[in-house]
């Protein structure tokens, strides 16, 4: 399976990254090569193999539902590029 320019453009939109035309050109070429290399995996028969989404036998780690100290609003907003009162501010979403 390969990847064409149109697919790269769509995926870049999903990933919320604006690409310049020259970047799109270069990236499409490089991703095509990388995926060509990755395609060697298709030669393996994995029908009976279980996927390893995680390497440790851990599942559903729970903790007690108790209140604990967390960041104060001031601290949490310290690094914000835009803030207003106790909130992060962003460009208007609803017209």
């Amino acid at each position, binding site marked *: 399976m390969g990847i064409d320019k149109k697919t790269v453009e769509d995926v870049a939109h999903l990933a919320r990254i604006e690409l310049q035309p020259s970047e799109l050109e270069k990236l499409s070429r490089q*991703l095509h090569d990388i995926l060509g290399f990755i395609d060697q995996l298709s030669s393996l028969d994995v029908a009976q193999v279980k996927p390893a989404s995680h390497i440790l036998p851990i599942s559903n780690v729970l903790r007690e539902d108790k209140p604990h100290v967390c960041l104060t609003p001031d601290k949490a907003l310290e690094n914000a*590029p835009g803030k207003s009162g106790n909130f*992060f501010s962003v460009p208007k979403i609803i017209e």
Partner: protein
Amino acid sequence: MELNQLTAHELLAKLKKGQFVLEDILNSLYSRIQTVEPKVKAFVRIKAGERPVLNPSADALLGGLPITIKDNICTAGLNTECCSRILEHFCPPYDATVISKLKNAGGSIFPFKANMDEFAFGSSTENSYFGPTHNPWNLTCVPGGSSGGSAAAVASDEAIWALGSDTGGSIRQPASFCGVVGLKPTYGRVSRFGLIAFASSLDQIGPITKDVEDAAILTGIISGYDTNDSTSVNKDVPDYTRSLGKDIKGIKIGIPKEYFIEGMDSEVKGVIQEAISKLKSLGSILNPVSLPHTQYAVPVYYIIATAEASSNLARFDGVQYGYRAHSDNLIEMYKKTRAEGFGEEAKRRIILGTFVLSHGYYDAYYLRALKVRTLIKNDFDAVFKDFDCIVTPTSPTPAFKIGERSADPLKMYLSDIYTISVNLAGIPAISIPCGFTKKGLPVGLQIMAKPFNEEMLFRLAHAFEQETEWHKLKPKI
């Protein structure tokens, strides 16, 4: 010898005897930095003549000894930017668990953070927003990556010891290129809380040091269960220094035939074969073994690691921290922020990762990669039934020239061919200096062990180190 050239355990012994004070160590480090940093560039955001003060608790275990930290590990009040424009000016409001542990043990956090490939995406430290680090053994070569700043700082004696992070070889490969010791602990041994995530199922924090004893000390301090990281494992941390000084008679070592193939530098091969003979002369039992799915490790890695990265890096959107591009439209703001904030390799990996997870491609790429990951892990399980450890080169080549591979991402990805399987299988591995090429570039020997058997790594590595002088050689910068 100057104080900055000593190992942490040597300095601690002398501190205890009162032969000097902490201030003397700092003076020696800062004076070294002043001389060689303009050439090595191991640190980021460093200002000439700047000399921040440390406030250590000098009577605890580590006596206030400074530790150099990679720029992706959160240090409260000290900028942590992952060497990316998108985290410009980010100053964490909290410490990573490993940082709290170091502070509790009486260590001080060195105020200059170590350079790295942006978000740890790379094998050469050339992908840093702040520019490349240079290899102390040859300034025209890369120090390896992504923890290249940490490794170069330790190798050039600009640091006593350091922490790095390893997702596909990012501690071991730079340790190998710079002639120092680097360990990737078992997945789950060290808390990842406060490590800015690259690929959460692969990332581990680990030490980069001048010798094996320092690595054992530092690993002991940073290891352990942490309720803030649900993937850390609740298992006692042994005193790793007790693994040192033991003989290795009868230890069963496997040499995987798939690691000694075409593409391996002939000088590296020679050096590794000599190291293997040395291990044999120390009484260990060596036998060839097979890890049949080795060739699939790199493709599997570049699916799983980029998939996880694309998800982890979704948080960098110009809202909560870091760089924000101006736009009156929200979606456009995200897109411009990420276009201007991420470097080329980060964009490449995010887009590749998004692609392999996207509808219609998930089964063919991501799911298939997870299945092959199982096969790779099974390979190791099978070998470890009969063997205590596996020995390989850390990298197929010594340090390469700056710029040599940066135009070809695929060629760069293949630099990690010997280190990647370890992360996929979740096992621990160490790289130790084992010789030099004719041109004077270091070569690293990699030792792998069963999950949670870091003790075996320290035992074998220390026995080898005691019989060799490679770790004592210093670069002329």
